[in-house]
């Protein structure tokens, strides 16, 4: 940017815009984040530590990690397969397929949970069969995992598809011509090209998987110590008026969000060229 561009606003307008924009950000975004930590430490370090070391908190943390550990890798495999098929080939119905992949983003989290309650709940055919065979899905851990898979479904794919489309197919074609098989081509040609984009997608997918509330709340049945993820544990503590506890547990999620943002900015900053198109020739 030129320092003294003739096409900019008078200084007072710049000042006004800066004050308005930054002020809005500060009140709307920065204050809520800060308040999480202030409320969490309201009664000191001991109360904070105590809230984080209850058996319920432990089991919530463990369950959240478990859910993310299943949901994220599955969506990574899906994202890689989908972006390979969509970005490296031309076929009819491609745009429709992309629209379908994006679908979970436009479904309310509550409805995302509801569809699995309807599918696996005791008053559906499938649910009847499952309960006859003592298989619990809804109001149990598998339900949480499936609902989380649904809400985080598009993250990796939507990050990789545009990236791989921009990168084109020449390098893969060359590898195949030189005798590499499909798997070898993917591992030694495609993967190095998309690794930062993939990491970026995984990061966002993971943040959502660990923080999802609405969908998980609907399928959880709120069984304490059994189907409580961290966000659900926050809700329970809050509704019990245990504010310090709720905010203490919430501070873990806030820290996770901050780490995600830092890593995301870092990747954007350092590997911008590998995330977006390599300069269009």
């Amino acid at each position, binding site marked *: 940017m030129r320092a003294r*561009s003739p*096409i*900019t*606003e008078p200084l007072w*307008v710049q000042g006004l*815009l*800066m004050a*308005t*924009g930054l002020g809005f*950000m500060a*009140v709307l*975004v920065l*204050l809520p*984040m800060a*308040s999480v930590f202030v409320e969490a430490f309201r009664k000191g370090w001991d109360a904070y530590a105590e809230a984080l070391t209850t058996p319920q908190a432990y089991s919530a943390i463990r369950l959240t990690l478990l859910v993310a550990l299943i949901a994220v890798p599955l969506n990574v*495999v*899906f994202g890689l*397969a*989908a972006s390979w*098929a969509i970005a490296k*080939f*031309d*076929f009819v119905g491609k745009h429709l*397929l992309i629209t*379908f*992949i994006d*679908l979970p983003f436009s*479904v*309310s*989290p*509550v409805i995302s949970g509801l*569809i699995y309650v309807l*599918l696996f709940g005791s*008053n*559906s055919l499938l649910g009847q069969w499952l309960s006859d065979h003592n298989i619990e899905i809804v109001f149990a851990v598998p339900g949480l995992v499936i609902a989380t*898979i649904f809400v985080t*479904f598009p993250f990796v794919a939507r990050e990789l598809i545009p990236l791989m489309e921009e990168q084109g*197919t020449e390098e893969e*074609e060359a590898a*195949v011509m030189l005798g590499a*098989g*499909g798997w070898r*081509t*993917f591992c030694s040609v495609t993967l190095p090209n998309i690794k930062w984009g993939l990491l970026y997608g995984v990061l*966002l997918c993971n943040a959502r998987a*660990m*923080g999802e*509330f*609405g969908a998980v*709340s*609907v399928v959880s049945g709120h069984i304490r110590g059994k189907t409580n993820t961290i*966000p659900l544990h926050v809700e329970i503590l809050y509704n019990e008026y245990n504010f310090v506890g709720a905010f203490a547990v*919430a501070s873990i*999620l*806030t820290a996770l969000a*901050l780490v*995600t*943002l830092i890593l*995301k*900015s870092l990747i954007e900053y350092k590997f911008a060229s590998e995330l977006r198109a390599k300069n269009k020739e």
Partner: protein
Amino acid sequence: MASTFRFPTLKTPSVIPGFGVTLAFTLFYLALVVIIPLSGLFVKASSVSFGEFWQTVTSDRVMHAYKISFGLSFIAALVNSFFGLIIAWILARYRFPGKKLVDAMVDLPFALPTAVAGIALTALYAPQGWIGQYLAPLGIKVAFTPLGILIALLFVGLPFIVRTVEPILQDAERELEEAALSLGATRWQTFWIVIFPSIVPALLTGFAMSFARGLGEYGSVIFIAGNIPKLSEIVPLIIVIKLEQYDYAGATAVACVMLVASFVLLFIINWLQHWAGKDEVDLG
């Protein structure tokens, strides 16, 4: 020969292997996770008689919830369009210390779990909260009123506007603005006549995304809303309440209405993006 016959239009031939297996897996996983469960919703809804369906989705309490959800999401998207545009503008055009930090903070509402946002906003705007204590003497109640819902929707919707408008402002051709200046336009005229029309598609896309997100939002809203029937009850909460009363048919009916609204919005957003994309090509 049957073995050499190809449908010429379905797929362009390529030497790269793995199309069949990756596409098959993609379709299988998509059907299993998304298509089948979502169509289950409509199957369930079709098992309810039309009269019953209609009665549920037009009942008094649900109608109030639509008004609150649609109305407040619309207002939130509007307010966010204004402030989001300003934030996008200063990020795209100005240099100031801490800009990278502000840029990263824009995405916080995407990254922060909604339940955390919900309790944090409630703590801020409660009558004793950091902000609430200054509003209470003025007679302004935010927490546990529709105004609180609006604040939560502003929070979750802001990044959509900034992130769709910012790249357009960054890529804008400054030559056009210089030309406008040299032709005697004031900066204000330049903005409205040269710059604004070029960001309209992006702004509308951001608006629609923010609106759509607001309609479905649950976690950040329910803590601050107070959830008083016919006053501060949002549609997603109605679905949850019906579900908790084991009224699966009722929950499904209301969910269907919302899902159709979301799909219409998705269609509009796709169309807007298409329009915006075309614009870019025309310029470049």
